[in-house]
């Protein structure tokens, strides 16, 4: 049972480039989340989804987009990368009380 899988683990982007962070879970969870973690800080919610076809903004959605066409996948899209988006990104899913996290993607925008 793989749990929550994020790819890539590391990425360096140039300012203005675009990329998609992939997130897949194999636990048939309805709820999925994208968080970012800046150095020395807690996790801040970017977007979340309560099921396929339904997404909503979190605390810091600007500069990001998401889609949820299937229960398993919840990709996060950065359209025009900016240095302020340098962070570690975590995808998570849950069905009941506790959430399961992926291993994170360290993104650097230069």
């Amino acid at each position, binding site marked *: 049972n793989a749990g929550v899988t994020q790819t890539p683990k590391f990425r360096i982007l140039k300012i203005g480039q675009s990329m998609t962070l992939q997130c897949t879970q194999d636990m048939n969870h309805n709820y999925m989340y994208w968080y970012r973690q800046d150095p020395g800080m*807690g*996790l801040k*919610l970017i977007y979340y989804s*309560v099921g396929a076809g339904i997404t909503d903004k979190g605390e810091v959605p600007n500069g990001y987009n998401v889609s949820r066409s299937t229960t398993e996948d919840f990709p996060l899209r950065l359209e025009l990368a900016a240095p302020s988006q340098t962070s570690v990104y*975590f995808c*998570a899913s849950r069905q009941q009380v506790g959430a*399961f996290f992926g*291993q994170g993607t360290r993104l650097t925008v230069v």
Partner: protein
Amino acid sequence: AQTVTQSQPEMSVQEAETVTLSCTYDTSESDYYLFWYKQPPSRQMILVIRQEAYKQQNATENRFSVNFQKAAKSFSLKISDSQLGDAAMYFCAYRSGQATDKLIFGTGTRLQVFP
């Protein structure tokens, strides 16, 4: 809006000793969940322990236990018989009892364990 506060940026403990990490939260809701997550250098977020607000009994998971004071809105984590592998960032988190709601995290406490 709900908030979670961890006032100890860093803590240290000697191996085999006990340490307590503090967490306070603010909410007007009566139905919610509280969590402690561990983040080792590998970056993986690992659920350590959880507490349902409607339960008066403090949660316990092996060497980890909580002191849940609902009226004071306090949720501390006690680690007994500390081990070197306990060294990590620890995050306190809150989630509303509403099914669709999301986790709100504190800023974390870095725990060092000395031999």
